[in-house]
C-alpha cells in the first residue's frame, strides 16, 4: 500500500539496525522457550545459549526483508495502551466465538445458515488489515476468505443475519475496526 510505504520510509531503519532488532527478538524468544520449567533440576545450559545465538544470527542474516514493521508505531505508548485494551475485547470475542460455534455444532438441529458476504473496511494500512482479518477469523462464526487491495473483505459467515452490505459490516467488522484503527493508524 502506498500510504504504508510513505509513512514507514520516513522512519526507515538502517539495514543493520533492522537485523540487530530481529536478532534480539529471536534471541529473547529462544531464551524464553529454553528456560527450564522446573527450577530444581533445570538450568540454562551454555550450549542452549550458544545454539540460540547461532540460530538467531542465521535468521537475522537471511530474513532482513521480512522486517517491514513500523517500529516508531510500536514504541508509541498510546499504541501500547490500545493494544492492552484490545487484548480484553479480543479475548471476550474469542470466548464468545468458541461458545457460539460449540453451541451450533452440538445442537441437534444444527442451526446454521452459512454464506460468503462482502464487506468494506475503512482501514488503510496493511498491518491493520492483517490484524483485522485474523481477528475476524477467530471470532463468532466468521472466517476471512479474501482481502483485496482496496479493502474489501470476503467473509464466510456461519449464520448470515443480513444480506445488506452495510449492516453486515456493522455486525462483523466495526467492533474491531475502531480499536485497530487506534493501534495502527
Amino acid at each position, binding site marked *: 500500500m502506498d500510504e504504508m510505504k510513505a509513512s514507514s520510509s520516513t522512519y526507515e531503519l538502517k539495514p543493520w539496525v533492522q537485523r540487530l532488532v530481529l536478532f534480539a527478538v529471536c534471541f529473547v*524468544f529462544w531464551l*524464553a*522457550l529454553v*528456560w*527450564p*520449567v*522446573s*527450577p530444581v533440576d533445570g538450568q540454562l545450559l551454555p550450549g542452549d545459549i550458544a545454539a540460540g545465538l547461532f540460530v538467531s544470527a542465521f535468521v537475522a542474516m537471511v530474513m532482513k526483508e521480512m522486517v517491514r514493521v513500523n517500529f516508531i508505531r510500536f514504541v508509541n505508548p498510546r499504541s501500547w495502551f490500545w493494544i492492552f485494551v484490545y487484548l480484553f475485547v479480543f479475548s471476550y470475542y*474469542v*470466548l464468545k*466465538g*468458541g*461458545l*457460539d*460455534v*460449540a453451541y*451450533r*455444532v*452440538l445442537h441437534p438441529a*444444527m442451526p*446454521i*445458515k*452459512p*454464506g*460468503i*458476504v*462482502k464487506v468494506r473496511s475503512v482501514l488503510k494500512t496493511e498491518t491493520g488489515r492483517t490484524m483485522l*482479518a*485474523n*481477528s475476524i*477469523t*477467530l*471470532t*463468532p*462464526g466468521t*472466517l*476471512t*476468505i*479474501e482481502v483485496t487491495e482496496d479493502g474489501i473483505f*470476503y467473509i*464466510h459467515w*456461519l449464520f*448470515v443475519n443480513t*444480506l445488506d452490505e452495510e449492516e453486515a459490516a456493522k455486525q462483523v467488522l466495526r467492533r474491531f475496526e475502531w480499536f485497530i484503527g487506534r493501534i495502527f493508524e
Partner: protein
Amino acid sequence: MNEIGMTTNEIIGLALIIIGVLFDLSGCVGLVRLPDVYNRIQASTKCVVLGTTLILLGAMVSLASPQAVVKGIICILFILITSSTAAHALSHAAHRSGVSLWDKSVIDRYAEDHGHENNEEGAL
C-alpha cells in the same frame, strides 16, 4: 494441600484443562457434523483455538512458575497467529480451486465477483 492431595492452583488448572478439552472435542464433533469445507474450518479454528488456549492456561496455573507462564503466553500467541492464518489460507485455496459451498448456503458474494476459477468449463 487439602484432603484430596491437590493444591488450589492444581484444581483450578485441572478445571481449565477439562473445559479446554471439552471445547477441543466440540471442535472435532463440528469437523464431522458440519456440511462443507468452510463450515468445518470454522469449527476447527474457533473451538480448537479456545480449547487449546484454555489447556495452556490450565497448565500455566497448575505449574505456577514464571517459566511456565512465559512459555504458555508465547504458545498462545503463536496459536492465535498461525491458526487464523492457516484457516484463511485453506479456505481461500479451497474457494479458488472450486470447492462449492453447501447447497443451503444463502449467499456467495465471492463467487459472484470472482467466479470459481476452475469452474468455467463446468468441471463441478
